[in-house]
């Protein structure tokens, strides 16, 4: 299958009190058509910023410093704002974390659906309403709830409504930013099931942003691990869970429950991600990496292909087998 989305060298920074914070730094990412890619990383590593930069909708103090975002081979960053706006939602749609005010509180869901279907999809009102009913059914919502206001929905229902909204115009790619984070575990599972079913039934291409590795293993065939504004490892989810190559990925696996090869106990990675306004020299993970060498603090490790479709940005990628052995021991991570 061909590449649907191709991101090359994308960088985004925020201005904050006169300082530039590089939240996304030279990111490369590929999403093949029909694939779901999980984007994982700790809080604050730039996942949301990357997701929003792909949509091209960023806060006023953010700027895209370079790179290209190609959808079906066409660079979106080259388009005029008006042309880019035309692509939005028809080709690229977004599922926000709806615990925030992501649905307009003063309109009924039906009207918010109509807005998308009529304004952007060009459907007449009647056809739009029929489509809205079908969409609600497909995400497991009772269509009578279309006449409700957002605040009358539970968290899980709101999230389903947001998914229905994102699917409205049959986009080529759906980007979901923490779609289940705000929900409690049981509802989380139900919504994840719905997403998985939709993915299979519709052959959906999606990027699922999450800080929860189990969400990725459940939904996504591909995984990209992000750390301090960079993608440090990417490949198939299978490869990454069985043969993690970057020490940060190994650490994440240790810190997450319920994976193939459990360690004795859950071990968190000590320390905190670096300040993006002033990232450390060399490998950004070095200050927290138990496997770091002196060289790691000198220069940036470039991504290396470790097997077809699986790359990692670590100087010690070649010794990954031995590193994995070490990483499985809890003592490695506690100093």
């Amino acid at each position, binding site marked *: 299958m061909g590449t649907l989305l191709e991101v090359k060298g994308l960088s985004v920074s925020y201005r904050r009190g006169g300082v530039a914070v590089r939240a996304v730094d030279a990111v490369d990412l590929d999403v093949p058509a029909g694939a779901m890619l999980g984007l994982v990383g700790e809080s604050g590593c730039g996942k949301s910023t990357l997701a*929003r930069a792909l*949509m091209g*909708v960023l806060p006023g103090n953010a700027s895209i410093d370079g790179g290209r975002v190609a959808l079906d081979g066409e660079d979106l960053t080259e388009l005029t704002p008006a042309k880019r*706006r*035309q*692509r*939005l*939602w*028809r080709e690229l*749609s*977004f599922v*926000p974390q709806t615990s*925030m*005010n*992501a*649905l*307009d*509180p*003063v309109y009924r869901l039906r009207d918010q659906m109509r*807005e*998308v279907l009529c*304004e*952007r999809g060009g459907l007449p009102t009647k056809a739009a309403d029929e489509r809205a009913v079908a969409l609600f059914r497909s995400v497991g919502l009772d269509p009578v709830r279309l006449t409700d*206001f957002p*605040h*009358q929905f539970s968290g899980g229902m709101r999230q389903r409504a947001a998914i229905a909204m994102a699917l409205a115009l049959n986009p080529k790619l759906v980007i979901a930013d923490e779609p289940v984070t705000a929900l409690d575990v049981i509802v989380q599972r139900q919504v994840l099931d719905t997403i998985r079913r939709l993915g299979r039934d519709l052959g959906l291409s999606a990027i699922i942003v999450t800080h929860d590795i189990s969400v990725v293993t459940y939904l996504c065939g591909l995984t990209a691990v992000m750390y301090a504004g960079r993608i440090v490892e990417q490949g198939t989810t299978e490869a990454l869970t069985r043969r993690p190559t970057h020490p940060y990925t190994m650490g994440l696996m240790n810190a997450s429950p319920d994976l193939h090869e459990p360690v004795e106990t859950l071990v968190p990675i000590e320390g905190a991600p670096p300040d993006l306004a002033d990232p450390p020299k060399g490998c950004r993970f070095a200050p927290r990496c138990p496997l770091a060498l002196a060289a790691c603090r000198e220069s940036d490790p470039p991504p290396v292909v470790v097997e077809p479709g699986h790359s990692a940005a670590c100087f010690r990628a070649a010794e990954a087998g031995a590193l994995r052995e070490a990483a499985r021991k809890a003592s490695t991570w506690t100093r």
Partner: protein
Amino acid sequence: MAYFGRRFLHMLIVLWAIATILFLLFRLMPTDPSIAHLDPTFTEEQRQLVRAQFGLDRPLFEQYLIYMKNLAEGEFGLSFRQRQPVMGLVLAVLPNTLLLTSSALIVAYLFGALLGASLAWRRGSLFEKISVPLVLATRAAPEFWLGMIVLAIFAFGLNWFPSGGANVAGARYASEWERIFSLDYLRHLVLPVLTLAIYLQGLPALLMRSNMLEIMREEFVTMARMKGLSERRIMLRHAARNALLPLVTAFALGFGQSVGGNVVIENVFSWPGLGRLLVDAVANSDYPLAQGAFLVIAFVLVVMNFIADLMYGLLDPRVVHGEH
């Protein structure tokens, strides 16, 4: 419904308390108003009549009960000066005040909402930097002074509009409606409405601006952008629509406050309304009339506060459905 009931009860209590305060104010003053300010031309008979009517010869508490009973029956007594029922005098000028207030508020809120929205839209621009202090200055300007300037320019300088009153002297109309919808009345209405609107627009403009700025940071506005909706649509249908909610409440509250606040404007333009009635009554120590005018002004204020609460509920679905 329970909400409605609770608010309604609250309104009644406030009205009762205001009436009580007023009673105490007028009765506990060192001088007995009826003795100190009774028109000397009153005959002894009339004097007794008035004293008996207000029960001024009875103990204070009994006076209070009579006063409350009279109020409840809409009986405000006789004007000392005009020797007519206060209720009739008040009701005769009430339409003028309500009309002045509502016209001015509508003009002010339409203009203010538009101005506020465009200030928010073009935040950081030169237009915004100049407009905000200007709007603040209109809030700082005394209403009567604005009225004087407007009068000097449009009534005396350009001679476009009459300088005072509500109708040309001596004009006769078949009915109150005919009077109010006459061209003459409208011509008299223009300048007071303009002045009042200049004074009133600042609040909605600033409120709209800050609401809009707040709402433009909301996630649903970002989502609207992601949906590829036009900037115009985002501003009008989402940002402005949400930002308008508090303005509706402010409108109702403003109406209540303005009926009392009009006192000044009505005097500048000799507009025969409640405020002017109050000022004349106080100036002439016509206490029954002053009391009646004040109570009606307070009544409008309290009722509008009540309506403001209800309106907010109507417009914000979150309140209707019992969440807060």
